[in-house]
């Protein structure tokens, strides 16, 4: 390692940079993908959760790779969490999020498509359930 010709400074620098990039990647998996705290309560469930998380992570990373090549942009300069949002609000994925107010901002409107049956509106409208509950409470 003391031989400057065999181990040039640029090579050492790139090696260090490559090593450091492992840390942000682990951070992305744990924090951005939310694999830090697992929800399942059985060993099989936990394993399934980890691998599904990794599958999703790979899908998003491949999308980043594509975007980088397409736009001729440095892939490491792109944000995983920033890309996850447009994917999750894609009409095929995030068309409806019931439980999270923050994620609801990304919901996809159904209005551009063929008119859905009336009962769907009752299913997808969160206020409907509240109204029913309120009515039941009021009548009781």
């Amino acid at each position, binding site marked *: 390692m003391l031989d400057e010709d065999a181990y040039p400074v640029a090579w050492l620098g790139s090696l260090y940079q490559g090593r450091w990039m492992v840390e942000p990647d682990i951070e992305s998996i744990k924090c951005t993908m939310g694999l830090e705290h697992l929800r399942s309560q059985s060993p099989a469930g936990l394993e*399934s959760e980890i691998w599904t998380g990794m599958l999703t992570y*790979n899908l998003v990373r*491949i999308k980043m*790779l594509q975007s980088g090549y397409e736009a001729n942009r440095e892939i490491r300069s792109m944000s995983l969490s920033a890309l996850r949002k447009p994917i999750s609000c894609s009409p*095929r994925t995030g068309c409806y999020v019931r*439980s999270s107010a923050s*994620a609801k901002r990304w919901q996809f409107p159904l209005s551009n498509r063929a008119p859905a049956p009336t009962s769907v509106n009752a299913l*997808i409208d969160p206020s409907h359930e509240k109204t029913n509950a309120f009515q039941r409470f009021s009548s009781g």
Partner: protein
Amino acid sequence: MSILPMRSFLGFSIFQRSMIQNDQLPLCEVLDSSLITETSEEDQVFFGNAHEDVFTPAINLWAIVSQFLFSDAARSCKAAASRVVSLLAHTEGRVVAQNAGNFCRAKAKIPIATIRKIALRLANQAEYRAIQFDDLTSTIEFSLQRFYHCYYHAR
């Protein structure tokens, strides 16, 4: 536009569509649904054949993956089941009950080995193609450099 054939086992194209995929994009073959289809066939993941069944392997895997695209409460099985209800209403005009229990039972039918295989194969393919892509880019750059170098000296 319908995402059918969801009933067939070739219906994994839903993944391509969810990932805002275009055939013109680089590395498009990596996000091709055939990898998921092949893996599912290898492991014989067959359920939800009946017409009235909601959770086919494709829909189920899609719902599981969609859980990880969200955080907090939107990651719950209930929210995933809601997304399936919304998807079916959106694409097929069919209203089904939002049943998180059914979703969880269907989830257990997809073997962990299959999910692991898909994740690893996807990573391998992407890595291989990315290296190829980089090599191709560097080869072109190198050729251009040589061309300019020769051109400059010829003058």
